């Protein structure tokens, strides 16, 4: 109820003091009741009503034209045509024209209907009574009695054996459904504890698909690797790389603070799991001066010169390190699997 709709007689200036005083004498805050209807210009002036009619009809006509425009755009524009439209940039002509014509076609129907409702349909406010939702005591009593009758006639109360076995049967039958869900996937067992890395597996450069030599890993660059034998067209590639993905950097051995890390490196070349220990995003950013790597998902930061411990962010533990060495042909190879599960922590991880 906005103030413009307040009936004239209730406006302060219109109030007859004597009448007001009478009302105030009883209850100054009494409900004055529904204000009388105030006619709109269209209710009084047929010309205004006609104008409204034409506006509504115009909107509906516009909608029809827009639909024709939609069909025309659908036929006219090749699906791959790009157009430059300020300020949107280069956009698909089909998408833009279809979206705008459909938008106008729909919007005009809506605008027409609303304008019609607001200016031409009756705007008399009506009051409807509400009725209590709760049943009367008699109805309640009747329902309870009916229910008792039904229960008695079923003899369920007198024959508990039937009742109990029925509940038992109903309780058990959904178990079949639960059992079927067992087929949704394998048990976790030790699956999360192992990757494809193993003693003797060469480190393959992710970019070149060639085995890595120590001299390929230069100071200041981040190299990604996968285990030998894992190819992109393998059916299981994604499942494997989700755990195998490896990140390699070269650090001056004297800069490596963690003794264990140094032991597992090859002349300062260290290999860590690329999978963030927070919730599993691949780590992708490397700061060469500090040897920090950053996970772009939630900004966990690990210090690769100090056992890849977490120095910032929500990750809970260091990145697992892969022990590496060099084989007879001079290629980098793994000297075993990761010593602990890679990726996010879980209950059985320990």
């Amino acid at each position, binding site marked *: 109820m906005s103030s413009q709709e307040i009936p004239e007689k209730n406006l302060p200036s219109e109030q007859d003091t004597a009448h007001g005083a009478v009302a105030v004498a009883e209850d100054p805050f009494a409900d004055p009741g529904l204000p009388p209807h105030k006619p709109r210009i269209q209710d009084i002036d047929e010309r205004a009503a006609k104008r409204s009619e034409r506006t509504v009809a115009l909107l509906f006509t516009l909608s029809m034209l827009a639909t024709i425009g939609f069909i025309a755009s*659908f036929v006219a524009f090749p699906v791959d045509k790009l157009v430059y439209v300020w300020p949107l940039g280069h956009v698909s002509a089909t998408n833009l*024209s279809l979206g705008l014509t*459909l938008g106008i076609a729909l919007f005009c129907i809506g605008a027409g209907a609303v304008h019609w409702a607001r200016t031409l349909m009756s705007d008399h406010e009506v009051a409807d009574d509400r009725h209590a*939702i709760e049943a009367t005591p008699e109805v309640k009593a009747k329902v309870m009695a009916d229910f008792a009758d039904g229960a008695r006639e079923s003899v369920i109360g007198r024959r508990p054996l039937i009742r109990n076995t029925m509940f038992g049967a109903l309780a058990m039958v959904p178990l079949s459904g639960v059992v079927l869900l067992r087929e949704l996937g394998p048990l976790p067992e030790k699956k999360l504890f192992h990757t494809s890395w193993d003693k003797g597996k060469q480190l393959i450069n992710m970019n070149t698909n060639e085995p890595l030599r120590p001299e390929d890993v230069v100071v200041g660059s981040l190299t990604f690797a996968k285990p030998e034998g894992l190819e992109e067209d393998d059916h299981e590639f*994604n499942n494997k790389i989700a755990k195998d993905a490896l990140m390699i950097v070269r650090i001056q051995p004297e800069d490596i603070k963690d003794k264990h890390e140094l032991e597992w490196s090859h002349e300062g070349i260290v290999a860590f799991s*690329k*999978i963030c220990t927070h*919730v599993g995003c691949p780590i992708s950013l490397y700061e060469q001066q500090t040897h920090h790597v950053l996970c*772009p998902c939630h900004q966990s930061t690990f210090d690769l010169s100090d056992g890849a411990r977490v120095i910032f962010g*929500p990750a809970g533990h260091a990145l697992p390190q892969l022990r590496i060495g060099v084989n007879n042909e001079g290629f980098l190879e793994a000297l075993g699997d990761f010593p602990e599960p890679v990726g996010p922590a879980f209950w059985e991880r320990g």
Partner: protein
Amino acid sequence: MADWADGRLGIYSLAKANMRKIFPDHWSFMLGEICLYSFIIIILTGVYLTLFFHPSMNEIVYHGSYVPMHGIRMTEAYASTLEISFDVRGGLLIRQIHHWAAVIFIAGMFVHMMRVFFTGAFRKPREINWLFGFLLFVLGMFTGFTGYSLPDDLLSGTGVRFTQGAILATPVVGTYISMFLFGGEFPGHDMVARFYSIHILLLPGIMLGLVVAHLILVFYHKHTQFPGPGRTNKNVVGMPLLPVYMAKAGGFFFLVFGVIAAIAGMFTINPVWALGPYRPDQVSTGAQPDWYMGFAEGLIRVMPGWEINLWGHTLVLGVFIPLVVFGLMLVAIAVYPFIESWITGDKREHHLLDRPRNAPTRTALGVAWVTGYMVMLLGGGNDIFATHFHMSLNAITWFVRIAFFVGPVVAFIVTKRICMGLQRRDADKVLHGRESGIIKRLPHGEFVEIHEPLSQDQLYSLTAHEQYTPAEVGPSVDENGVERKVTRGQKLRAKLSKGYYGEGNQVPKPTAEEYKEITSGHGHH
């Protein structure tokens, strides 16, 4: 024709009760309509998408019409999304409408829910409908998430990985849930197909049922209304369903659809072709979920990475606590109506809405909740804020951590004070009239502002709200002198009730006596 149908369906009786049903009008009542209409739009466009989308993780090498992706291995799900976007005429538009409508749907539910909360529309008899709405909100988030994951692009895959990592953090059963959900190790080969049936059948099916139930209850309870002249708890004032409401609501559907279609035509949402297909070893920077997941994202970002290793097990608190807090914040929404009705002990039906100021504690609690939510939403974008405003990520993270606890408390206190101030102003207005802005000089030189008395309509509207008196624990001895046991629950309730309605927590309404005294004393200024 109508008679034919009536003989079989009884449509006349149905129409008799409903055709001229009265609906009150207020802008905020349109929020629910926005939700309903965007839901319908989502279903319409979703069905169209199913005609072209291949919910399969079989891998192919792409040779379609989007040249930058030539020769790249991808799942059929991703390839078919490219096809919808680049080969199906209008396919891109439908995808965009589907996604925009989803974003608007969930935002609409959020705001609609706030409207219902802050006006107290959740009170008896509408608690169950509040729960239906709440479930729709939660299911809407999950439906949105599963849909977002279907194209199997780099961004959505990263989001799925995030979810899987969070599932793993669940104590005891985490690894089992993950294996069963993904059919093995992440990402597996089943995710898209399973999410697909969840996304297009399971969740929308439940939601459709809930939407229908929600609307039936709205009809059955009849709409609430704000108090005003002639509007009481026993009636509903407005215009009839046929024709006015039908035209306005029906028209509004077209308005909403039209606006979403135009937005979808102009503004790209989720350009899945930009980043390529999902690979568990690749990621883009600045990865962001849809807005409705930003709150969970924030929780997980700012939580310190606590892990407890004991007896060969790991408790991943750093991820599990955010999961629990996320759940609790949602549960708080669901249970609030029951808590409030327990505190007031009010068993009556309420069809008149509260103005938020007249329920200061409730309003303050709501604002506190929203503040916590918004703080976490901000936390979800901490990297974006850091780069855009050149701030340290560390500083933002600490700000969010502290603000998550302090912000709601401050918001609570400030909101309550504002409400009290507004109540006081209302009381002043009732007693002394409206400030007219006209300054008058009294004979002895003093300047006063003329106050105009309020109309009867305004007087009534400003005093129509009810005020509770705080519940008492009652005497510890009953009328026979026997000691009465006061349970802890009763004590708690009395305490809360005092916090809600006790002294200093609401401004007493002006009484008729006060009013008469003042008006007869000074006359009309």
